[in-house]
């Protein structure tokens, strides 16, 4: 599904190498987690894959299926099936949440040569999905993320994921700023979307999210590389001992 090979990335504005050769393959139907200390390059990886400005790829490749992601505009990557749940969802005053989602869903369908969703069908689907995530009608009408609590913003991200039905979902620290109940709600939303055809890459600092979204594999990232890969028990090791042991072990 997602194949990253020897990916090197530096900041565009300054001569600072952030990713120094990332190798990662996420198969369809699998959930991979990336953990790592601050500044290890986890969020950069998510931004580079989704096409944010400000980064320069100096080497390596990233493919979604057969599609070369790095060649595409952000909207083309989205239409190809990539979804990034933002660590900090953006507030957009003046644009209604519903208008935004409908525009996005239909733009992606159009880009893929599919028929656009009718207003009635869209309404039916979004109401059902919103209910599962305990998102009320008022939240759908309000401007995108404006005045939303931290938990509401993250639930709104998952709602977008549910509506857009991507092939590959990247969750960038989706647990940050959430209390336990909100985290469970978000995790349930993600778990409901797990399927054979869909891959997940869950970026997190803490093991606790992985109690709710059970990963198949856990990768430890440090200094721009993946330094260790293991089963779910690796996350527990981090939780108990921190990163220091692992890092000294691979150094």
């Amino acid at each position: 599904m997602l194949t990253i090979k020897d990916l090197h990335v530096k900041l565009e504005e300054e001569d600072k190498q952030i990713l120094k050769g990332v190798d990662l393959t996420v198969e369809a139907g699998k959930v991979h987690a990336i953990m790592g200390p601050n500044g290890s390059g986890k969020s950069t990886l998510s931004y580079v894959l989704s096409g944010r400005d400000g980064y320069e790829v100096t080497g390596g490749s990233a493919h979604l299926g057969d599609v070369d992601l790095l060649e595409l505009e952000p909207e083309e990557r989205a239409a190809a099936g990539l979804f990034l749940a933002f660590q900090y969802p953006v507030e957009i005053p003046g644009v209604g949440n519903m208008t935004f989602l409908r525009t996005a869903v239909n733009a992606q369908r159009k880009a893929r040569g599919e028929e656009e969703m009718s207003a009635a069908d869209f309404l039916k689907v979004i109401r059902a999905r919103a209910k599962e995530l305990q998102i009320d009608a008022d939240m759908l009408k309000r401007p995108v993320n404006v005045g939303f609590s931290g938990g509401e913003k993250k639930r709104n991200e998952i709602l977008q994921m549910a509506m857009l039905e991507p092939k590959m979902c990247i969750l960038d620290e989706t647990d940050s700023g959430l209390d336990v109940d909100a985290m469970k709600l978000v995790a349930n939303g993600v778990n409901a979307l797990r399927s054979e055809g869909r891959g997940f890459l869950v970026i997190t600092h803490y093991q606790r999210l992985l109690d709710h979204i059970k990963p198949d594999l856990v990768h430890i990232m440090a200094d721009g590389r993946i330094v260790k890969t293991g089963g779910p028990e690796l996350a527990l090791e981090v939780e108990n001992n921190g990163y220091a042991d692992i890092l000294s072990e691979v150094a």
Partner: protein
Amino acid sequence: MAAPAKNTDPTEARIAHLTLPRGGWSEAARADALARLRSTGLPARRDEYWKFTRPDLLTQPVAPSAAIFHSDEAPIFGDTAALRIVFDDGVFNAEASDDLALDHVKIERLADTDADIHWAQGVYGVLETAGQTPVARPLAALNTAFASDGVLIHVTGAVPKPIHFVYNHRDEASDVILHHVIRMDKGADVTILENGPAAARFNKVMEVDIADGAAFHHVRAQGRDHERLAATHIFARLGAESTFKSFTLTVNGRLTRNDCVIELTGDDAIAHVAGACVGDGDFHHDDTVFVTHDAVACESRQVFKKVLRNGAVGVFQGKILVKAGAQKTDGYQISQSLLLDEDAQFLAKPELEIYADDVVCSHGSTSGAIDEDALFYLRARGVPASVATDLLTLAFLAEAVEEIEDEGLREVMVDRLEGWLERHRA
């Protein structure tokens, strides 16, 4: 060093090209207006409120010619049921206009000097004169003196449908001066729509006298002719518990100066004036607003949004004057520009002058680019960059457009803005 003597005074040079209409009930008012114009002279760059907008194109004796713009869009407000009054280069077109008869309203023409329009004498040039203090508005005095025509409307009740002025531009050299007067009796209610470029150069004044409890709604779209010039004034006087709401859409136009002078004279009156403009290239748009609170517990709002690109210039000069005794005033003013590239320019001068101690007045002015984070967020969800930019631009304009109460008219404005944005993508 002595300044070189001027060969001709610019004000006299302009007057020399105009004919003062003689006879009829407005003669005295016109003579007074001419005297006002001569005492101040036409606006010049040194004048406090003409520092950001060059007045010369508006004041020079002959209008520069302006190409006629041919649009494939359907006429604006074409689907709105209204009583239509059509002017071609400022000349009343009786054939294209509806019969000037409607319930609760009496409609006459300024050019019809024989008409018995005593009521108009109490308003014509009167609100304009009041609006000359403390800031002189010589183009309005010129208008009162030389207006060739206009519509005089006496509203006595709730008018069943809007009255719609259509200003066609037919002649590339037309230089037009129109003056409308609207007097609203107690509790009356009317909506005035305006659209069209009117002329190569258009000078228009609208005086609106709103009695207690009356409601005046105004929505206009200034024509899309790229080379047209316009200087317009609205002078409004509001009685107790009355309402004034005016919205202007401006797309294109080489030079537009819209003055709006509002005086709140009765308690609990409400005045909202708003504008949305979009300009690409040779476009200069100036909103100059002066709101005077001279009564208790009145509310005023000024909401102006400008989208500018490719050398377009936007100007906002807005003042709230709260006189002593105008307690419980609620004044609000916002002027914002969205600069779509680095060549666009926005100049703003917000002013508050407050002589009462129990008031709430707020103002803000900002200038910025499209929010890159919001743009990326939309694109990351699959919305193409051009569509995302339009969506964010419309969102920026929304606060001004939402000042229009009527949903249908609001949609007409949004449609026009969407059309413009689509045609002017980078």
